């Protein structure tokens, strides 16, 4: 991974893979690929991305950010309030478009996609974990975890087994029928993580995942992230918490819209 305006290391020519190369399952990707396999495109690639909000005064939340995240990376993004962390997450999550610059997700140039195509790409390749959990209070834990699979093309017969598997994985297999309101904060966030990974995304984007949790519960969530990383999932975690950031294998610091430090 490289940061700053320098060219990305993974593929200097910036040419994406030929169409015939399958995008492999994220968890199975790094360890199982034979050495002779052509290099996969980075999971995430930002090139000179600027995001400005018209004023007055005009605000540049991201200023010429270049960033490449390889499949299987575990990246934390830290920075003070107003440094552009949320804007970066929105751009990475295809919830916002860069004003200038290129963003490729899994080799796909996203700037030319229409809204429906972006929605499809989000559904298939991204998982989200939010600070506020964003669970549907009137749906059971299982129904909450099933939700993303409605939209990402998962065959109906596979949805529930996958959701149950994800809940087992986060240690909530015994809570499938509960309503989120009856769970603790840590459990709710684990439901959110299960929801994010059940649809088998390529990249998990977490926005202050421990922001609403105490230290012990935060540790549980971070342990879970460690496991997901160990399984080969690409993680990008935006956080204020230095302890959380330290768990990542790569650490990025944002200040005033620029990537100023790489771990």
């Amino acid at each position: 991974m490289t940061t700053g305006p320098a060219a990305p290391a993974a593929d200097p020519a910036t040419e994406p893979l030929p169409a015939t190369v399958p995008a492999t399952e994220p968890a199975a990707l790094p360890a199982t690929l034979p050495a002779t396999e052509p290099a996969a495109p980075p999971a995430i690639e930002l090139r000179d991305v600027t995001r400005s909000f018209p004023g007055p005064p005009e605000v540049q939340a991201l200023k010429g950010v270049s960033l490449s995240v390889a499949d299987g990376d575990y990246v934390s993004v830290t920075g003070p309030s107003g440094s552009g962390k949320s804007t970066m997450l929105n751009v990475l999550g295809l919830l916002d478009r860069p004003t200038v610059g290129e963003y490729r997700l899994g080799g796909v140039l996203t700037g030319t996609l229409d809204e429906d195509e972006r929605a499809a790409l989000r559904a298939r390749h991204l998982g989200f974990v939010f600070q506020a959990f964003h669970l549907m209070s009137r749906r059971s834990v299982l129904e909450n975890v099933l939700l993303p699979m409605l939209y990402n093309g998962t065959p109906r017969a596979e949805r529930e087994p996958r959701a149950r598997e994800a809940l087992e994985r986060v240690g909530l297999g015994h809570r499938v029928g509960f309503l989120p309101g009856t769970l603790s904060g840590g459990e709710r966030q684990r439901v959110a993580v299960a929801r994010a990974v059940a649809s088998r995304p390529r990249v998990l984007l977490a926005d202050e995942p421990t922001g609403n949790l105490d230290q012990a519960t935060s540790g549980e969530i971070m342990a879970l992230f460690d496991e997901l990383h160990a399984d080969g999932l690409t993680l990008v975690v935006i956080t204020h918490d230095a302890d959380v950031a330290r768990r990542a294998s790569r650490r990025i610091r944002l200040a005033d819209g620029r990537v100023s430090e790489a771990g």
Partner: protein
Amino acid sequence: MTGRATPPSRVRRLPRPHLPARLRRRPVPTPGSPVAPADRFRFTDLLGEATADIGSRPGRLVMTVLGTVLGITALVATIGLAQTAAAQIARQFDAASVTQLVVTPRTASTGGGTTVATTALPWDAVPRLERLAGIESATLLAEVPLPEAVVTTVPVNDPSQPPSAPPPVYAASDELLDTLGGQLATGRFFDAGHDRRADRVAVLGARVAERLGVVRVDTQPSVFIDGIAYAVVGVVASLDARAELLGAVILPTGTARADFGLAAPGDAQARIAVGAGPQLRGQAALALAPDDPESLEVDAPDGRSELGRDVQADVNEVFLVLSVIVLLAGGVGIANVTTLSVMERVGEIGLRRAIGATGRQIAGQFVAESVVVGLLGGLIGAALGVFAVVGVSVVRGWTPVVDPWVALGGALLGAVVGLVAGGLPARRAARIEPVDALRGGT
């Protein structure tokens, strides 16, 4: 690792799922090529999402569907009661009118301002008509033109009596009583023999009998018409049709022809099976005047009661307007609550957009929700409307009549109201930006 639930800090690592390769491999987005939309969000998914939360707030659901329920109830009850009332009226008043067919010769104006018949009915019109399917009984009728006639029960003219208009004299064939649904007060009706032999017998209508003081026939009373005595053989008490005959003296046609030179029957009347009117309208004219059926005018009832239809139309117009107004209010109610729901669920909408829902899918979900609410209101309203019709009918002793299509249509109309009402809020929901929406909690 065990299968038991583990403490949160010791999260289990499960073995990787062993799915077939075709299922494990996700679609490959190729650079430059369009990204295929997630196409498995099907109608059943939409319906599932739309109905999942519908009962979660029963109080709000009741308030939401109330307007539609009232509107559809009013609509179904209005139409149902109108149908029931019309059927009731038909039963009470139409029994005679829907089963009576009258054939008369067409008339033409002469230069002198009078009208004359352009053709004459044949004397054998009765057997000709009775050969037609649907004709149950037929009779000939003709008013005997006796402008100066005096009809009395005594053979002399009493100059001291106050002058009074003589009762009309009609000639009829012997099937009259059967055809017009008549009841005798006393005596009997003349028969085919009287007719054939031109016997001087007469049957009096109840009013004429009263006027002439004839109350019984066993004393062999007579009436004198133009000085000719006719034995009164019976008195007609009532007639379902042609009630004017109750104020007339009725002679056999043979007698009227012999004594007064009756040239032709005035009209032929028949009792027909219910519903046979439209078919017999053409057949009767052809049977009686095959050479020129247009010369005869056939008055036959339509398949349905015109009176009943008129009543139905009158009742419908007033209450349909009211129902539509209530229904509009119901639609506005659904629109308001759906808009409120969209505003409350901004976080959920943001989440759904973030995890891959398109704007169309969000809009579809809200439209489907309001359609389901509308359909629910329509179903409840249609059921209540039918109950209302049945209830009113029970109280009034009527037979409830509700077209099944009215009940079904009422329920579907509720869904249409929901569809229209949900359109605007759904558009609003689809336009919510996920970034903005996710700033709030769900």
